[in-house]
């Protein structure tokens, strides 16, 4: 008896929803948008506002006095310029290396390997993701050390490993983010229909021509999606560089030290604006390629 009215109500509201797609959309979007706006947008906005505040030197409390000092320090300070350039350089290099390594392996997985091999290869690429970031970084520390595996391997040919420093950081970061670059490129290449490649071949295009004129343009959004991972993850990293970076520091270290050591959240927030601006610039640049649908 009690169910009848509620069932009627359900039917009525269902009918209402069916004829009002806007309301339906609002219902669907309300939960995720509330979450993202409440948790993330507010947090980010607050951080930006904090960059305009200052810290009371005596009590260590943040006082909401408006000032542009932090921003000025970051924009004009030679230290911040050097570290920003270094960080962006490392992030770009890591990204290029990862794409160059990921392309052939992703292509092989998507277009050459048998379905069974394909499945095994995906597992092989995914598995290292589970061996903790820190453990892998320390493993590279061991590999790159003076009497480590790398020097032992290249010694017979008269070479020497790079030791700890920026090159070691680039190598380790490339290693850590490689699966995150392979996976989207593989997924993107898999979507490229084989018929297109065959058509290209039938029209007499040699393989490299098919690759550069058909495959690459079609896979570009997926490649860019992969680069967003490697670029952004490298841009904010501060742990790998302390493990294998020798004396180097990156933007993440400056932010971390200012939050922790100096207890200067406003300055840290101002420094954090640098990667934010860079990422927004990058996203704006690649938005047109449709890469954002491929992450």
């Amino acid at each position, binding site marked *: 008896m009690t169910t009848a009215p509620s069932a009627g109500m359900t039917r009525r509201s269902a009918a209402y929803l069916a004829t009002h797609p806007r309301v339906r*959309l609002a219902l669907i979007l309300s939960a995720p948008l509330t979450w*993202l706006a409440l948790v993330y947008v507010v947090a980010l906005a607050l951080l930006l506002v904090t960059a305009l505040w200052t810290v009371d030197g005596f009590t260590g409390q943040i006082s909401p006095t408006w000032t542009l000092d932090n921003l000025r320090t970051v924009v004009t300070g030679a230290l911040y310029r050097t570290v920003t350039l270094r960080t962006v350089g490392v992030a770009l290099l890591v990204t290029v290396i990862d794409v160059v390594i990921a392309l052939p392996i992703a292509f092989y997985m998507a277009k050459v390997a048998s379905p069974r091999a394909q499945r095994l290869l995906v597992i092989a690429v995914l598995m290292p993701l*589970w061996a903790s970031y820190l*453990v892998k970084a320390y493993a590279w520390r061991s590999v790159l050390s003076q009497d480590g595996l790398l020097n032992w391997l290249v010694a017979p040919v008269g070479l020497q490993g790079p030791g700890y420093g920026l090159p070691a950081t680039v190598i380790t970061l490339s290693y850590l983010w490689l699966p995150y670059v392979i996976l989207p490129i593989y997924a993107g290449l898999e979507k490229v229909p084989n018929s297109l490649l065959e058509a*290209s071949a039938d029209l007499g295009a040699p393989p490299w021509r098919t690759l550069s004129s058909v495959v690459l343009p079609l896979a570009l959004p997926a490649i860019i999606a992969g680069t967003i991972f490697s670029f952004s993850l490298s841009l904010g990293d501060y742990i790998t560089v302390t493990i294998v970076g020798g004396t180097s520091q990156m933007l993440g270290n400056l*932010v971390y030290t200012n939050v922790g050591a100096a207890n200067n959240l406003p300055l840290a927030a101002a420094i954090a604006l640098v990667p934010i601006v860079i990422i927004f610039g990058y996203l704006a640049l690649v938005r047109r390629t449709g890469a954002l*649908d491929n992450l």
Partner: protein
Amino acid sequence: MHLGRPTRGLLAAITGLTLAVIYLPLVVVLINSFSSSTSLSWPPPGFTLEWWVRTANSAGARDAVVTSVGVALASTVIALVLGTLVAIALQRYDFFGRSTVNLLVILPIALPGIVTGIALNNFFRTIAGVPLSIWTVVVAHATFCIVTVFNNAVARLRRTGTRLEEASADLGAGGWTTFRLVTFPQLRSALLAGGLLAFALSFDEIIVTTFTAGSGVTTLPIFILNNMFRPNQAPVVAVIAVVLVVVSVVPIYLAQRLSAADVDRR
């Protein structure tokens, strides 16, 4: 594409070589887990099973794994719900601000972890007035995990089109019924893939976690970090890593099987 035998061979060789490089450090970790050196120094001076025994008896490691699995499961569930909703909204409706919503979903993963970390830390403690706890970690992780679910779901929705859903509506099914009987089954394997990636992301996250974890909340990465600073514990960490890699085969394999079955059926 018609590739010559040499090209195929070359690609296979590059793939093999890359995989070798990917697994080389993991082999080092495996060997270190048996090393008698407490500092993971190379080459190992000798071998022992001590670390495996110690890890098996380490309540701290077990608790950390339980905590991490809990956090990852909770954030994955939230991400699955929110990610699917956004995907349906963006793929099935056209509305003003669509690209902004898209950007909003991507942002938490595109911005560096340290930015997300200090922003959330600051937010929880000042504006929200929420003390840091295990739940703040879940909220933070769920936020950046939404995107992996979203992308997999969006790609699948785009590929499947709307014909079946329209047919379902024509046959008189309501929105929920259509979702339950038509859309969801189509999405299942995509959600599985997205969920697995979300789980992995959360499970290994350390930077955002550092800034959002409350007292006594020790996820596995935090446990590992702490043990790097503890005397004579480094090899235990290597053991944990080896176990994780081996154990991870199960969910990855299952996910693969399920999505393969899905593809075959279609």
